[in-house]
């Protein structure tokens, strides 16, 4: 144990004394999340929308006025028939259309609930999501306002339809995405580099000749990065929650455990990379090309997997990040429990064990 503590201490000195790694470890999560966060939220300003108002009554007029008054939307066009939708969207200027069916006010008062349809152009999925969210928020606001004067609460139900990309479901893609990238970066890239560094400067040899056994060496090297990754995950979650209002609907304990699982799978990948690279540069290149690119491109973080060609969809299955993002979104947005996420969790567990076994095998071959 004393040896282990000494080892961890040494590793922390390495991390704190290297400015570059310090920046990657602590600066990057914050910069990334702010960058992604604001890049997305800033897009929603004076978005042009269309209206098809078949009822033209008190409720629909009030609601339209409210939407038009908000800084986010600007009513650009009034439509008169549903066959105009296609041509309107194709022009590309209008990003969303609100449809009020006939007799909206009457239905609301007699039945206590009414449906309003929102059609969005989901060719830009993130924008579409945000637009829908804002419209929903405005309608909800409106609903609680009219309910102030009512004894029986009235309900306005928003029925949304994403055109051109109907599969896209989740909001706030970026918090789970950035979290995944950062954890991958810290856990896999930083560990593989730090192990490769020991090989490069020759200290790995000294450690192997010492009474420490190889697994102690690896655990000692990896342990500080587990702590750092957990710390980073917490920072990202806090920023997401307080700065960007990322919902946190699910069980935080489950979220934590799943994150540790993903961290372990990334670490095992990092160890695997370090067994095949002799220098820090190689480790970095393999990590960037082999890990970060797939995480960014194939995890469903930026590009929805459902809109990828078949071969890429199949390939995306071997990217651990894909499963972690599904888990994150499930817990954060849908409050899913382990009963719903056991499949993804199991896949991550199997992947982690597989990578670990492979790196142990590789490591042994090298020692022989």
């Amino acid at each position, binding site marked *: 144990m*004393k*040896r282990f503590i*000494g*080892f961890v*201490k*040494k590793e922390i*000195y*390495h991390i704190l*004394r*290297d400015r570059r790694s310090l920046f990657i470890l602590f600066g990057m999560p914050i910069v990334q999340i702010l960058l992604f966060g604001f890049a997305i939220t800033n897009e929603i300003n004076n978005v042009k929308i269309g209206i098809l108002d078949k009822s033209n009554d008190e409720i629909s007029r009030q609601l339209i006025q409210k939407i038009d008054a908000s800084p986010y939307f600007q009513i650009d066009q009034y439509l008169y028939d549903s066959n105009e939708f296609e041509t309107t969207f194709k022009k590309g200027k209008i990003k969303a259309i609100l449809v009020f069916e006939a007799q909206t006010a009457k239905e609301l008062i007699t039945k206590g609930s009414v449906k309003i349809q929102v059609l969005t152009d989901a060719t830009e999925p993130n924008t579409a999501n945000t637009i829908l969210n804002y419209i929903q928020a405005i309608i909800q606001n409106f609903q609680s306002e009219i309910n102030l004067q009512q004894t029986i609460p009235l309900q306005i139900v928003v029925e949304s339809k994403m055109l051109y990309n109907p599969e896209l479901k989740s909001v706030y893609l970026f918090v789970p995405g950035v979290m995944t990238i950062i954890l991958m970066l810290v856990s896999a890239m930083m560990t593989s580099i730090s192990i490769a560094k020991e090989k490069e*400067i*020759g*200290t790995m*040899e*000294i*450690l*192997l*000749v*010492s*009474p*420490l*056994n190889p697994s102690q060496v690896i655990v000692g090297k990896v342990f500080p990065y587990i702590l750092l990754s957990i710390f980073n995950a917490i920072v990202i979650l806090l920023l997401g929650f307080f700065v960007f209002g990322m919902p946190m609907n699910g069980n935080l304990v489950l979220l934590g455990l799943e994150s540790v699982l993903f961290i372990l799978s990334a670490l095992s990948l990092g160890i695997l990379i370090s067994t095949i690279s002799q220098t820090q540069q190689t480790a970095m290149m393999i990590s960037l090309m082999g890990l970060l690119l797939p995480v960014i491109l194939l995890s469903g973080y930026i590009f929805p997997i459902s809109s990828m060609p078949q071969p890429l969809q199949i390939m995306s299955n071997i990217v651990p990040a894909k499963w972690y993002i599904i888990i994150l979104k499930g817990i954060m947005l849908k409050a899913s429990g382990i009963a719903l996420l056991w499949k993804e969790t199991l896949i991550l567990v199997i992947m982690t064990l597989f990578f670990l076994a492979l790196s142990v095998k590789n490591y042994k071959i090298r*020692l*022989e």
Partner: protein
Amino acid sequence: MNTDKSIWVKDLTKKFGDFTAVDAISFEVGKGEIFGFLGANGAGKTTAMKMLIGISKPTSGAAMVAGYDVFHQADLVKQNIGYMSQKFALYDDLTIKENARFFGGIYGLTNTEIKSKTQQLITDLGIQEVVNQNVGSLPLGWKQKLAFSVALLHEPKIVFLDEPTGGVDPITRRQFWEMIYKQAHNGTTIFVTTHYMDEAEYCDRVSIMVDGRIDALDTPAQLKKQFDAESMNEVFLKLARK
């Protein structure tokens, strides 16, 4: 088995598939002896040494190092030897004290032991004024001496030195050999590989490996007589050309 020898090797062999890197070598090294382990690149020196320091498993044969069997007691072997590589591997971003602390720690020394030994090391090397500097900023010669002292921190019975004088100037090399002599005089066995034939002359006995086998083993004086040579360099060339 002769256990009062520091190193005892009998028919030690290492094969990688069909290729025999080390071919049934046998030798003994006595306590406090400076044993030069010579050979051209690719002759199998490094592989042989890796087996002796417990990081590579022999294919066949037997070897005792510091009284322990390298097959079954690799952990005890490791605890009782010191090792310094040709890279003088220390952590550049740690200070001298931190390096000593870390390496002392992994050999299981107590805090007080580490403290007193580090102090001793600093006085012996005369490096008081740079104690709190990162090792990366020290000249190569100092790093070399420091790496050697760190390898001796846990008072091993045998020190393995893998080309310990590569890249340093002749004066520093000379000084380094003085450190080696002093250590051998104190009873530590020195097992050293080198490329420099003049250094071979400083050894008590020398073995020369060619193609995985030990082709010559004796004191430098005897070897020169045996091969009718003026210097160790000539001995080496005659053997290599055979």
